């Protein structure tokens, strides 16, 4: 029987339709358990019935951070890649594998570590005794209840993916640098692919905004953040095992990036820059009490906007893609998968554009702010 007259395209469509089954499996949490068609038979042993598909839960679990990599569900048992949990507790540093939590995110399973009892609620680890005194509302915002939890320095999904991306980038650019030494003429191979990008960052982003004299000092920084953010964006789009984390869509990550840009801008501000803030030219001195706070707020909103922009763009893209994929599970039929697959394909391509674009905009605005800080003031 001929299944299809165009075997390659059928195969491709079949693979695309199967991605949701493999890549978007969720953590097997006790209370809400997503059922897929394949796992529907294996419900005998566990105490969960076929609950309704909760798209919000799925999306939140994919966008948020986690202590382990949940790869797939196999026969009711989850397959995960367990990452180490590093805690700074009242008793000192504790390191153990996240396997001890047994995929518990509801605070039921107690882990005993050197006499301390810990529970994990929605990926935040608490002291068990303190946890029980918290209300439901406090538990949800538990990340900030610093007296009820130890300090968490674990290698989470995002940290792992960040390590991976730095290693990839480092090896890549080291290879490129070495190829320049070996081959002083026209670049071949990967150098030929990356060199136009480096030249692009230098000539379109750094030179026009920072000026001819000083752009050389800031080139390494701009290049680093450009490629770092771009590759992390791209990694977040890949749904299977080592790549499935959402690093740039995490507000703490973008906060650190924006903060570093803020530090670079502030520490390279010359006298004209500070003069503009504390002594805006053309403003009479008695307005200074109003102008100075306004200027300071203006100085702070720029990195804030950088942070929010990157975070929101990437997160929004991920949410859209995940929602479109969840359509299949909400309608609970395979027939929706071609439509959903088409939408997901379109959105993924758009997200790739957004990945590059957001990296470019972040770098461009950083260069702009640095340029404003080091600008030689041409007196009117």
């Amino acid at each position: 029987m001929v299944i299809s007259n165009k075997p390659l395209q059928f195969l491709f469509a079949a693979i695309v339709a199967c991605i949701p089954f493999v890549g978007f499996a969720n953590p097997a949490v006790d209370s809400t358990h997503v059922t897929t068609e394949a796992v529907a038979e294996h419900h005998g042993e566990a105490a969960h019935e076929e609950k309704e598909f909760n798209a919000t839960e799925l999306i939140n679990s994919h966008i948020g951070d986690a202590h382990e990599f949940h790869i797939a569900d196999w026969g009711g048992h989850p397959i995960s890649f367990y990452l180490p949990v590093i805690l700074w507790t009242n008793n000192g540093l504790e390191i153990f594998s996240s396997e001890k939590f047994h995929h518990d995110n509801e605070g039921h399973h107690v882990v005993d570590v050197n006499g301390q009892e810990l529970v994990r609620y929605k990926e935040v680890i608490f002291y068990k005794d303190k946890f029980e005194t918290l209300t439901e509302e406090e538990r949800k915002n538990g990340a900030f209840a610093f007296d009820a939890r130890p300090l968490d320095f674990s290698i989470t999904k995002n940290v792992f993916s960040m390590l991976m991306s730095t290693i990839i980038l480092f090896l890549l650019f080291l290879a490129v640098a070495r190829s320049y030494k070996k081959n002083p003429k026209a670049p071949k191979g990967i150098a030929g692919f990356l060199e136009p990008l480096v030249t692009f960052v230098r000539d379109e982003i750094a030179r026009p905004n920072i000026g001819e004299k000083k752009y050389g000092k800031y080139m390494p920084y701009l290049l680093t953040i450009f490629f770092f953010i771009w590759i992390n964006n791209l990694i977040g789009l890949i749904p299977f095992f080592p790549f499935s984390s959402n690093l740039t869509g995490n507000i703490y990550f973008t906060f650190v990036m924006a903060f570093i840009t803020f530090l670079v801008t502030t520490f390279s501000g010359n006298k004209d820059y500070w003069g503009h803030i504390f002594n805006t030219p053309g403003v009479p001195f008695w307005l200074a009490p109003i102008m100075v706070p306004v200027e300071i707020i203006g100085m702070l909103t720029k990195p804030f906007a950088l942070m929010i922009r990157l975070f929101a763009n990437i997160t929004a893209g991920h949410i859209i893609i995940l929602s479109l994929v969840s359509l299949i599970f909400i309608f609970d039929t395979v027939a929706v998968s071609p439509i959903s697959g088409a939408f997901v394909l379109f959105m993924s391509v758009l997200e790739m554009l957004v990945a590059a674009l957001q990296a470019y905009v972040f770098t461009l605005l950083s260069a702009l702010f640095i340029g404003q800080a080091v600008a030689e003031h041409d007196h009117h």
Partner: protein
Amino acid sequence: MQLTSPESLIFWTTIIFIVFFFLLAKFAWKPILGAVKSREESINNALASAEAARREMQNLTADNERILQEARMERDALLKEAREMKDKMIADSKQEAQLQGERMIEQAKAAIAAEKNAAMAELKAQVSSLSLDIAEKLLKDELSNKEAQTKLVEKMLGDVKLN
């Protein structure tokens, strides 16, 4: 949206990014940027030297042109000079010839005059001798008749005394 613990990501991000940045800046960006810039410079140098070579070529061609032009002008000048000289020589020789002619005429005239004088002198001599001869003959004839002669002399003496 669920917010997880901030410190893990913030701490690790800061550390990893700073380490990564310094490593990359030292081992990757410096050589890459240096290589790109040196290649750009070499390209610019090559372009500039090509431009200079082209300009040199242009200069050379212009020089050649100029030299040719000058040679041509010199040739024209030489020709003109030659022509002028020819004309002048012709005029000079004409004048010479004329002068010579006049002198010859003068000489001829003088020669003619001299000849004439000589001829006149000769003639005079001839005439005088002839006339002497004729006179002699006449005289002979006349004197041969003594009576006629003595009558004639008496008459002449008579004439003189009468003055």
